[in-house]
Every structure is written in structure tokens, then in C-alpha cells.
């Protein structure tokens, strides 16, 4: 299931990458060049934040699920599980914020 989903995701990503290159290449440079660049920038911002949010959500979900499972199996280990879980969540969230900043910068260029 996960492998099929990953394959579909990669195929969609490849399709968008090829389409964006084709979009950037077609048209006359004088008339449609600017709008093509803007379209590619919009695609880059959207897909960048989408991929970052997807990865961050997967990572945070797995981290919290594993942490809660560990605490439920062994409640006395709560203190040892808690701190790495906080650090992991903060680091994952920071990476998503990086992508968000880049996306905002790209949107500002539109």
C-alpha cells in the first residue's frame, strides 16, 4: 500500500517536473515569457510547501505514534521518551518552516 502510494507520488512529481519545464520552454519569450516564469514559480512554491508538509506530517505522526506506544507499553519510561520526542517534533517543524519561508519568498516574486 505504502509502496504503491510512494510510486504514484513519484510519478506525479515527475509529471509536474516535466510539465513545468515544458511550460517554461513553450511560447514566445517576449510575450509569454514572464507569465511562464510566474507559473513555474507558483508551481515551485505550491509543490515545495506541499512536499514539506507531507513529509513533516508523516514524520510527526510517526514520532508521536511511536512515543505514545512506547509510553503505553512502559509508562515508567515516559521521562526518557518525552524529551527526544519534543526535540524530534521541534526539528521536524523547523524543517517545514524552512520550506514555508522559501515558499513565501517565491510567492513574493509573483
Amino acid at each position: 500500500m505504502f509502496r504503491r502510494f510512494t510510486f504514484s507520488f513519484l510519478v506525479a512529481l515527475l509529471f509536474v517536473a516535466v510539465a513545468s519545464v515544458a511550460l517554461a520552454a513553450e511560447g514566445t519569450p517576449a510575450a509569454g515569457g514572464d507569465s511562464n516564469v510566474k507559473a513555474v514559480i507558483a508551481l515551485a512554491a505550491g509543490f515545495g510547501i506541499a512536499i514539506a508538509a507531507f513529509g513533516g506530517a508523516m514524520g510527526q505522526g510517526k514520532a508521536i505514534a511511536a512515543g505514545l506506544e512506547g509510553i503505553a507499553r512502559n509508562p515508567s519510561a515516559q521521562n526518557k521518551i518525552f524529551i527526544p520526542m519534543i526535540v524530534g517534533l521541534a526539528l521536524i517543524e523547523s524543517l517545514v518552516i524552512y520550506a514555508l519561508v522559501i515558499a513565501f519568498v517565491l510567492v513574493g516574486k509573483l
Partner: protein
Amino acid sequence: MGRDAPDRLSLRALTNRIFLSAGLILAGAGVAVAAGAASVSLLPGAVCGAAIACGNFFLIRKILERAFSGGGTVTKGFVVQYVLKFLGLIGVVYLVVRYGGFDLLGFLLGLSSLFLGVLLEAVSRSFEPNA
């Protein structure tokens, strides 16, 4: 949540390392500005990024500590608090990037203080005798 002393100390040490790394990044940015290798706008961007990173970590810690303080049960409102914190963070980042006028490289450098803090904590733990 019934924390014992070593874990409380460890969390405090981690927080201190994050503040230390933020200070190191700001000092490095200050030196770069003073040496003329970077523009002056790098420094306020780094300060803003470091403040956001430290504040985000502080809020995550507080929300999760409160959520897991029920002794095996997750308290109510945890999800709402976490989502509100994230929305607030997005809003602050949007305002800073869009209207702040800070240097973006400095801002990203300041945001990286969390990573450097975790690295410092891991390195310092590896030198402890009982590690």
C-alpha cells in the same frame, strides 16, 4: 507528570544549549557584520529567526508537558493548543517574511539555532563519563 531530577536537568540543559547556540549564531553574525563580510540587515534577521526558533521550542515543550501531565492520559485541548501554536507560527513567519524587511539569510540562520542547540547537547552528552 512526576519527572525525576535527572530528566528535568536534561531538559533544562537542552534548553540552555539552544539559547547558547542562538547566542553563538548571533555572535557569528555580529562578527561577520563587523568584519564587513555581511550586510547590517543580517543581524536583525538572525535575532528574529532565533527568537522564533526559541519561542517555538518553548511553546512545544510547555504544550506537550501540560498534555502529558495527566499520568498516562493525554489532557483535553492538546490538539487545539498545538494547532493554534502552529497557526500562530505560520502567521508570524508570514509577517516577518512579507513585511519585516529582514535579511532572509539571517532569518534562516537564526531559525537554525535549534539544530545547533541539539547538536551541542548531543556533543556535550557524548563527552559525559556515563554516556
